[in-house]
């Protein structure tokens, strides 16, 4: 599994499509994205990470670098999203950060 992370609107999904050589329509069968949204309601984050890791590509948007949210639910969601990203990175063969559309390998080599 390749875990792709990066800032909001940084071109993560477009990069994954290019990597997999598939269309937007073909993407849901091979990749899952916005997984940070799944973290807040997950009773068991490692189990969620295990399930997601069956996809070829898992994509999460980085959401943890701003000011701590005042709202407790938002705080918990942000916390869970960050922990899920760490669990996914641990399970991944490669981790890639896409920034302004450009990939940087954080774990393993960039796929050719």
């Amino acid at each position: 599994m390749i875990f792709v992370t990066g800032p909001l609107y940084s071109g993560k999904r477009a990069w994954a499509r290019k990597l997999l050589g598939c269309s937007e329509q073909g993407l849901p069968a091979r990749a899952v994205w916005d997984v940070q949204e799944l973290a807040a309601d997950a009773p068991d984050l490692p189990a969620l990470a295990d399930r997601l890791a069956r996809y070829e590509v898992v994509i999460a948007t980085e959401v943890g670098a701003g000011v701590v949210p005042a709202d407790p639910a938002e705080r918990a969601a942000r916390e869970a999203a960050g922990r899920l990203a760490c669990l996914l990175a641990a399970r991944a063969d490669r981790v890639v950060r896409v920034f302004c559309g450009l990939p940087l390998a954080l774990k393993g080599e960039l796929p050719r």
Partner: protein
Amino acid sequence: MSGRFTLVAGGAASGKSEFAERLILESGPLPRCYIATMEIFDEECRARVARHRAMRATKGFSTVECPVDLPGALVPPGGAVLLECMTNLAANELFSPNGAGSPEAAGTSILAGVEKILSASARLVIVTGEVFSGGNRYAGDTDTYLRLLARVNRALAARADEVCEVVCGLPVWYKRESEGAV
């Protein structure tokens, strides 16, 4: 002519401005030009601008004020140009009464302006903000602005010879001169 182009991104107070200025100072004895994008609202802004202009003058920069309409900015031919900051320019084009208005028109104006500067200059460094890692629940004008800035950043990154994110004053390179795009 199409000058060498480096895109310098970074968060608030990351040291991106100083790093970008260093790239220009290292580019040799070219005519240096600073494209300033802040809109001047009041006396406080004017004082700030005057201080910054004076600081840069000692380093040999001329200053072009360009809060909107980048294609209208006149830069010295064959010079080294530092444009700071894309976050201001994008916001001004969207929200200023003199701006392009729509995100489509704003993006078109900004990217056309960059092409025009590139064709006239030997060196271009553009500073932009990394404001996309603090959450993803935005709405209305904020989301429109973020989408525009992200699209401009991606287009500039694709066009640039070099792209880095500055962290604590140090560059993390996403693209380097003489390396092909991945």
